[in-house]
């Protein structure tokens, strides 16, 4: 039985899942081996290898990385974090989906405007891991029953102490995500400035 299936069935039965993602070594090695094509299910190895942040990791590095992840389950419509909350962690979607809302008005429990729906294997909240005093810039709500894998600041510090090479690699990948987002933002600003300039000239 696949790990994801096991988790989902546990959730459906109303049982709680472990806080840490603890994959047995032999099970992981079997999943990572070329012989794993025999099984039709998607393995943890496949799951993590398809996540872009971890694409440059070796199989053993992915295995070590999973030791630092926390497994948190959220019911449908449960708030993961709100805009303005202090942020300390970075989440991968293991199963389910997450809706992201921004521009919260601050009145009642209205989450704000819908921005995007994130699906399995996508990630969010990386700023929380890197910034010293991070405030969440958007509200995230579980769109269905969802399992998230989170890595938090103390885990990153521990990783850098215990496996410095792995920690540096993960930081580099996270910095790359941030750089890509910055580039995207800069391009958007340039386009918007151009539009404002054109509108000014027309007026």
């Amino acid at each position: 039985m696949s790990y994801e299936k096991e988790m989902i069935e546990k959730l459906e039965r109303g049982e709680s899942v472990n806080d840490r993602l603890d994959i047995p070594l032999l099970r992981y090695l079997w999943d990572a081996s070329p012989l794993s094509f025999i099984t039709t299910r998607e393995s943890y190895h496949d799951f993590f290898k398809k996540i872009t942040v971890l694409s440059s990791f070796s199989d053993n590095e992915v295995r070590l990385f999973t030791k630092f992840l926390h497994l948190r389950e959220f019911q449908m419509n449960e708030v993961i974090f709100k805009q303005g909350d202090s942020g300390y962690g970075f989440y991968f979607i293991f199963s389910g989906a997450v809706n992201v809302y921004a521009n919260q008005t601050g009145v009642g429990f209205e989450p704000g405007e819908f921005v995007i729906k994130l699906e399995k294997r996508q990630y969010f909240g990386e700023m929380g891991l890197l910034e010293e005093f991070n405030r969440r810039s958007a509200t995230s709500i579980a769109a269905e029953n969802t399992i998230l894998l989170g890595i938090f600041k103390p885990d990153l510090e521990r990783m850098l102490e215990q496996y410095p090479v792995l920690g540096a690699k993960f930081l580099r990948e996270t910095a790359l995500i941030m750089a890509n987002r910055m580039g995207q933002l800069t391009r958007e600003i340039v386009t918007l400035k151009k539009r404002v300039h054109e509108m000014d000239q027309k007026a």
Partner: protein
Amino acid sequence: MTRNQKIKLYLFLFLLTAAAFFAILFPRLTLPFGFAYIMFLMTKPLTLRLTTGSRRQRLGYFFLVLLGAGFLFFPVIATMYSADFSSLTDQLPDAQRSLQEKFFAFKVMVFQRTGFRLNVDPVSFVMSKIETHGTDLLSSFPNYLSLLLEWVILVPIFLYFFFMESRQFSRRLLEAIPNPIFEKSYVLFSQFNTKFGEYIIAKFIEATLLGTIVTLGLVLIGFPYAFLLGFIAGVTNILPYIGPVLGIIPALVVAFLAKDPSVSMVGMLVVFALANLIDMILVFPLLVSKIVNLHPIVVIVSIIVGSQLAGVVGMIVVIPFVAFFKLLFKEIYKDLSVQL
């Protein structure tokens, strides 16, 4: 938040408060538990990899630490300090006589210069006080012995629990934390553990270094009770600000009462000044300052409150607790200022 999540959150907060009350109400359990936890945290950086091994490996390591602590500390301390202790108790009557002589000379000097006759006898008063306290201490000795026996049994049991089950325990604890407060609780819990562990190790190293420097210095200048005075200076140095002052008092008393002209008060003062200078210039900035950043007044008030709550142990462990609460309140305040 759904109804179930709310119930989970309130239940968790209730359990946390109940645990805190239990800890305050039963210090006989809390203190050995805390002591075992401190020992575990002190050995944790060295055993980080070993404790993640198999159960048998961890069990082996637990006994190794226990045996090491027993073999290293007890005989070394006992043989080193028993000689100093016995000669100190032998010389107490001499000290009383010397004090009385010195006070008599002082009385004569006052009478000769002012014509005023001093009719008080503080030396006998202080000595009788010491005697009564001594008998009190002796009469309550069985209580102390039973407490010691309790610790001898409880501390290894708790230590065993920390070595074998700490990973599972922290996992269960993290599992129980409800989602809305998970991130913050986890980060604060980790920060507290790191701060507490680092503080205890730093203080232990600082005390050992200062005690060694004072002992060596006093041995070099031929000062009596060098081992005992060095040990006292090291232990008292654990307390910030007040510690160095408390540490020098016994040495001052010994120097004041000594008849032997080779016992130099100036030499002793130089040794203590040098040891504290090395501590202030080298050890403190390198080891302790980054861990605790509290105002001196806060530190002194905390030590007094700590001593009221849990005696000597309270005085030592109160500082990282206050540092943690400062962090906690800062976080809560930061959150509130955003929400308002």
